[in-house]
């Protein structure tokens, strides 16, 4: 209520001002801060759902392992950063750039990676979380492909630290946006590749299996729909995507697992299985929907 009054007062002042053009960025930021009233759901619940969302790095590794060539055109240009002025857009695009960085790292495209790192650092600074990126160390690691493992490790740790910090600071809404952005970008890349190579059934199955993660993202966004207009709008888009996903069936057959000990490691044999029923048309529809949501975010 207090925030509503604040926003109304700000809008009134902007409308009745002395003729000077209002500071658009300050206004957007005030809208952002007004939105972070916090949902009624507990932070523990939000945190427990957030932690389940898999790293976009898994999809980048899948793409490389399946023989897909590196394609920079699929990514969001790091030069687009100047377009992102509100915290909402900064957080979503931080997630998008995070996925793009992981993609460039996996393909060992170090110069491209450094460009993304620069934009990531700027966005993170804008959200007061820039302290988690050690540009110098990352830059040094990126100069040598032998450092790939360290580079992947340090960037993953940085993003994990950010998510933990945001949740501890009561800014889990930004964490939700960051993870949602990362997921949307991973989906965009995967769908584009899958649509151009319908013979790659593994990619199609991966897209189908994202139904489970989409459920989590929809749930997380729904926590904020009453307190954040931007997140409510994104939720609506995600719900449209979810409707398309209702056409995809995941059939799971459970069998008890077995194991053996190999060199001190317990290696499990998963005897359960799952079948994902997805068509080329489903892929096309999902690709178009994801593309549309992504365009709204990156433009």
């Amino acid at each position, binding site marked *: 209520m207090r925030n509503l009054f604040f926003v109304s007062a700000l809008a009134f002042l902007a409308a009745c001002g002395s003729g000077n053009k209002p500071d658009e960025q300050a206004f957007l930021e005030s809208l952002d801060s007004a939105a972070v009233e916090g949902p009624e759901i507990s932070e523990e619940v939000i945190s*427990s759902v957030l*932690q*389940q*969302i*898999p*790293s976009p*790095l*898994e999809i980048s*590794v*899948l793409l490389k*392992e399946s023989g897909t060539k590196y394609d920079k055109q699929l990514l969001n240009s790091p030069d687009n950063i100047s377009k992102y002025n509100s915290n909402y857009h900064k957080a979503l695009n931080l997630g998008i750039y995070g996925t793009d960085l992981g993609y460039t790292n996996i393909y060992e495209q170090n110069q491209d990676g450094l460009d993304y790192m620069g934009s990531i650092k700027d966005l993170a600074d804008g959200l007061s979380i820039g302290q988690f990126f050690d540009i110098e160390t990352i830059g040094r690691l990126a100069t040598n492909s032998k450092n790939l*493992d360290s580079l*992947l*490790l340090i960037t*993953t*740790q940085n993003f*994990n630290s950010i998510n933990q910090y945001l949740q501890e600071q009561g800014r889990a809404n930004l964490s939700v946006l960051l993870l949602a952005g990362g997921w949307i970008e991973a989906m965009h890349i995967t769908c584009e590749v899958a649509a151009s190579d319908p013979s790659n059934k*593994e990619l199609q*199955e*991966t897209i189908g*299996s994202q139904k*489970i*993660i989409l459920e*989590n993202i929809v749930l997380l966004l729904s926590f904020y729909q009453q307190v954040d207009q931007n997140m409510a709008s994104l939720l609506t888009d995600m719900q449209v995507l979810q409707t398309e996903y209702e056409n995809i069936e*995941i059939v*799971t057959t*459970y069998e*008890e*697992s077995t*194991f053996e*000990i190999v060199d*001190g*490691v*317990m*290696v*499990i*044999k*998963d*005897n*359960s*299985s*799952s079948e*994902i029923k997805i068509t080329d048309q489903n892929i096309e529809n999902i690709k178009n929907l994801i593309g549309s949501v992504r365009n709204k975010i990156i433009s």
Partner: protein
Amino acid sequence: MHKMKKAIYPLVVVGMLMAFSFQVNAQCDSEPYTSGCIPKLASGFNFLKSYKIDGQGGTKTKVEYSYVFTKGTQYMINVCATGESTDGIVVSLFDSNRNKVVSSKVNDQYISAIAYPCNTTGIYYIQYTFDESTQFCGGSALGFKR
């Protein structure tokens, strides 16, 4: 009487310091264990997450996290605690229907790492319990490879 007070004062201070020190020791600093666990992921595995295992001195019986595992991906979860062993920390994996996939305690042995080639995409629950643990404190890392 004044001399007596003078003599007791250092004892009180030392006592308070000892009590504080005990409290600090009782707290679980899992950070060295989580960071120590990451390099112990087997070769070829990419780091995903690190998990704190804080049994709060034995008052908590289990610590649980969850993660969506993807079909066709192999995951590794390892456990680190004081010394070389897992200090009685057992990691168990449950699928989305809460069916137990595996537990790292076998024949009274505590296995410190499990590898899971996933056949079924879904939410999995990674549960840590304490079995004759002394510190109730450790860390864990989750990695993946295709």
